């Protein structure tokens, strides 16, 4: 079994130094993960040997490119427990979530024929989100509500930063869509998906899961979770930027009208009208990010080889270390559950009397990279009574020494600004 130190050695960037020769302690994986050499090499090899546009051209390189592109889809589908045609490539998770929202909008506008009628929204219909959401799984639904006359409602968070089960009552007869995160990028809380899916199903509502944080850190089986749609991005799971995916249950993608239109997604085009291809091509208009999908293939192979269970166990240990260490600093308040159970290795926190920007700056001077700000989740910060926080988030390559360096750096921050 490879040790975690060996894993870090697979990531070339982690070998660099910052701020005048200091060892880099990268704790911003929640924003974007570093890439192992296998991913970088897969992309390079594709670009140097097989680069061509996919699904067109009869030459050998075009065949190789198409094969690589579709093999990547198969690998990612298997990785998340989906069928091949249920995975639509997008540029990131934000685009995937918007694709669902715009699919509903286009259906409401009458596109997609009889099969798409199921997605039509009427004034007074309700869309349910949660207070925990990243803006990417909130703003598209606000926009959809504003355009269709639907009403946006939400499930509140508890003082610990978990979804409040009492708030599930907001899912009712008029609910058409329930969009929620699988794991919060701020509180780290992992959502118990089953009761939400069950309640949504009981009222005939569609479920949309933001799996950005979970797909990168936990074993995930979308069929087993039973959600209707899910979104995740490559760059958070060791893959390149510029590629993500939408999962949709086969019969739903089949019925949904397209969003982006143009080349590559059509059957017959006349001057008057166009017929569209079946999914997933129907949702992949224009020239695609082929090299990035190849990189994502390498990323899921790498993760599978390490074992998501093993990775989750390692990160669980880091969560415990982080939470124990943070609890020992009296000026620090963690925005999220105090226990490491059902929680990712993400710790957003407030340092009493010290602004997150100042916390992050002094940590950076020690070579420790954390995120500062609202992490694209203003409402959950508001729920905690702060407008911003500092966030340390770990990945498979994070070591216990990294967490110790971070905690020592944080103690110096408190010393510096709070004076002692």
């Amino acid at each position: 079994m490879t040790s975690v130190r060996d894993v870090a050695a697979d990531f070339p960037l982690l070998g660099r130094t910052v701020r005048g020769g200091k060892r880099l302690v990268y704790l911003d994986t929640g924003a974007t993960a570093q890439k192992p050499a296998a991913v970088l090499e897969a992309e390079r090899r594709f670009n140097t040997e097989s680069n061509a546009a996919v699904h067109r051209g009869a030459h050998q390189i075009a065949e190789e490119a198409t094969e690589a592109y579709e093999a990547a889809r198969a690998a990612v589908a298997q990785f998340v427990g989906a069928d091949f045609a249920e995975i639509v490539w997008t540029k990131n998770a934000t685009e995937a979530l918007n694709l669902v929202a715009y699919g509903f909008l286009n259906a409401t506008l009458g596109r997609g024929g009889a099969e798409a009628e199921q997605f039509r929204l009427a004034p007074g219909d309700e869309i349910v989100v949660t207070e925990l959401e990243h803006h990417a799984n909130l703003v598209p639904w606000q926009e959809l509500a504003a355009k269709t006359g639907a009403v946006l409602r939400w499930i509140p968070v508890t003082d610990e930063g978990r979804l409040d089960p009492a708030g599930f009552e907001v899912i009712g007869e008029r609910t058409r869509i329930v969009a929620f995160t699988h794991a919060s990028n701020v509180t780290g809380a992992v959502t118990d998906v089953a009761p939400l899916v069950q309640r949504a199903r009981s009222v005939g509502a569609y479920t949309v899961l933001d799996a950005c944080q979970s797909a990168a850190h936990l074993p995930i089986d979308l069929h087993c979770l039973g959600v209707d749609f899910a979104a995740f991005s490559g760059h958070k799971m060791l893959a390149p930027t510029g590629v993500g995916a939408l999962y949709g249950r086969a019969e739903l993608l089949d019925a949904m009208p397209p969003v982006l239109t143009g080349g590559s997604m059509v059957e017959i085009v006349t001057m008057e009208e166009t017929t569209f291809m079946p999914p997933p091509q129907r949702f992949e208009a224009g020239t695609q990010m082929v090299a990035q999908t190849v990189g994502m293939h390498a990323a899921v192979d790498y993760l599978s080889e390490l074992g998501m269970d093993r990775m989750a166990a390692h990160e669980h240990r880091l969560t415990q270390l982080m939470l124990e260490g943070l609890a020992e600093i009296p000026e620090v308040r963690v925005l999220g559950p105090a226990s490491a159970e059902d929680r990712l290795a993400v710790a957003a926190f407030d340092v009493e009397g010290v602004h997150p920007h100042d916390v992050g700056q002094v940590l950076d001077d020690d070579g420790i990279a954390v995120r500062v700000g609202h992490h694209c989740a203003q409402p959950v910060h508001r729920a905690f009574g702060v407008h911003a926080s500092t966030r340390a988030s770990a990945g498979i390559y994070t070591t216990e020494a990294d967490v110790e360096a971070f905690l020592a750096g944080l103690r110096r921050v408190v010393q510096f600004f709070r004076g002692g």
Partner: protein
Amino acid sequence: MSSAMQQLYQQVILDHSRQRSGYGELDQPQGESFQVNPTCGDECRVQVRLDGRRLGQLGWTGRGCSISQASLSIMHEMLEGESIDDAEELGELFRELMHARGKELEPQKQEQLEDLSAFTGVAQYPARIKCALLGWMALRDAIIQAQHG
């Protein structure tokens, strides 16, 4: 603490971020401007009352990091009661300093900046320049509002 951090967080900045000069709303502002730093959600509101060509009263509220708060505090200390022309000139100088990548301006300019010269090191950190300039954007806008509003 490293010398880079001591250079960035000079005592005058830390002091002003704790004892903020001019913090509070004016009774009847003639001009005001609200600015947000989208990176962190920090915000400030600057209000002015003019007395002819002078900044008769200058007040500000908001929340932010030590750099942004100290910048606003020093701005108040240096400019309340001063002429609009002086405010514009000092604002220009400060913007020049913030784009100098951490190098000092000519000695005469550096002197003119008084306490603001403590921000010289901030310009080495691109992500923090906006923090330092947020209040000054608001001031420039508030003066325009007061003159034309």
